[in-house]
């Protein structure tokens, strides 16, 4: 950045020509949505539900949701819905020019076990969102698909794609099983491509505890599983340890994570700090920010560095973000993805002072493992 000429820089946000929110949400209520279901037999079934979150959608949470969210937090609530006027007000409040909208409740469309109901709800949602967007040009939306019946989802895309309001095709990931690359979804992918619309993937806040391991049981290859199983296990375990207060209970214990590299560490640290501050009542066992425990008690080893030839300096910057004191070299010999010491050293040597480099390459490990 420092070699930019002053005239090449934007100094304030007001100088931007356009600000686009690529993920805004409506907060459709179940009752509202069901009114849009066209097939009367399906609609009657849906109207009969005593508990839509368990007998239509199956979004099981491990504890009640945190509701202290923007606008009252009632996205799933029965008494609160977000009107088009609320959305327009958001654009005004935050100086956003355009917003591409997604659902809230239907991020878990794949948790609807019954495929007829799922397809009907997706169709209903797309009708609902069209009404919502009517004459509101600053909003666009993604076409909701119910991947359980891919052919029907593809028809839905073809039927809706001509509407100017729709700018993408959404495949929501909450409970999606098998995972998104499975052959059976090809009609959806093809329909998006044929209509010239991007395919948009949005993860959901629910589904991890019930559907996630099952969802990934459909992985197609060893290497696909390998690529995500390491970092996902780390992220889930790091979160579990911190949010259950384990480092608070054991302040002299160190925690060392091996075999997923360190690129995910800054991301998860930011994310966990954010969640801690936004949902304090869910994590009473912590007295400090998660990043503070990570700095004091958590260590992450560097292998596999990943293919960083594009800009070797990226590894150094990632380590800087993660906190160099928490990073230790690892080789993983003789596994096929091992990293020789020089591979790491060459990437950090010019970026950090010598004490930091010594720490990363071995001296921190001497302390943590008590090597003498």
């Amino acid at each position: 950045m420092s070699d930019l000429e002053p005239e090449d820089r934007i100094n304030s946000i007001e100088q931007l020509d356009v600000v686009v929110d690529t993920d805004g949400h409506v907060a459709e209520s179940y009752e509202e949505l069901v009114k849009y279901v066209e097939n009367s037999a399906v609609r009657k079934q849906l109207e009969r539900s005593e508990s839509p979150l368990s007998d239509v959608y199956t979004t099981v949470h491990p504890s009640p949701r945190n509701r202290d969210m923007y606008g009252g937090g009632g996205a799933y609530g029965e008494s609160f819905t977000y009107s088009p006027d609320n959305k327009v007000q958001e654009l005004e409040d935050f100086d956003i020019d355009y917003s591409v909208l997604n659902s809230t409740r239907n991020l878990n469309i794949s948790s609807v076990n019954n495929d007829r109901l799922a397809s009907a709800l997706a169709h209903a949602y797309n009708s609902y969102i069209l009404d919502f967007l009517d004459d509101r040009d600053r909003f666009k939306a993604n076409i909701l698909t119910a991947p359980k019946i891919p052919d029907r989802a593809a028809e839905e895309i073809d039927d809706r794609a001509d509407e100017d309001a729709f700018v993408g095709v959404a495949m929501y990931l909450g409970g999606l099983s098998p995972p998104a690359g499975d052959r059976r979804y090809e009609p959806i992918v093809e329909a998006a491509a044929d209509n010239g619309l991007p395919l948009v993937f949005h993860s959901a806040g629910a589904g991890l505890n019930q559907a996630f391991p099952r969802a990934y049981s459909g992985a197609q290859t060893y290497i696909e599983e390998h690529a995500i199983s390491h970092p996902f296990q780390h992220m889930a375990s790091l979160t579990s340890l911190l949010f259950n207060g384990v480092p608070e209970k054991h302040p002299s214990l160190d925690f060392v994570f091996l075999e997923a590299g360190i690129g995910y560490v800054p991301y998860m640290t930011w994310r966990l700090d954010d969640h801690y501050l936004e949902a304090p009542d869910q994590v009473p066992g912590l007295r400090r920010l998660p990043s503070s425990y990570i700095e004091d008690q958590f260590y992450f080893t560097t292998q596999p560095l990943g293919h960083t030839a594009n800009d070797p300096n990226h590894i150094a910057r990632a380590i800087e973000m993660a906190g160099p004191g928490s990073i230790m070299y690892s080789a993983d010999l003789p596994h096929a993805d091992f990293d020789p010491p020089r591979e790491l050293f060459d990437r950090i040597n010019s970026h950090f002072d010598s004490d930091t480099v010594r720490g990363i390459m071995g001296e921190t490990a001497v302390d943590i493992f008590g090597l003498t």
Partner: protein
Amino acid sequence: MTKYHKIATTSELSTHGDHVIQEVRGQEIAVFNIDGEYHAIANYCIHQAGPLCERGELTGYVGEDQDGEWTWENEGQTVTCPWHGWKFDVPTGTNVNDQRYRVPTYDVAVEDGEVFIER
């Protein structure tokens, strides 16, 4: 130069939980009645500049005791930002999760049924 600014009458703040929000010299300030005492705090969340006291409900927060049992703390003097749920103790302005985060608070004076804040 600090001055006293009238922000409410005692009758507007007669019971616990009542609050008013007024702009004083360019800063929106909320005054709450907490168990009969008046406390003034900026209507400004230091996280992302949200309107901290707009919802205005005074609650508590979940803590944990020595045995790992959940406890309900600070009932009736915690305010929650409507944007992202950050929680602050109204009398001190301190974030309940992290003492480094603090919202300005202001001294309050009462005279002849009128409530003033010092700013």
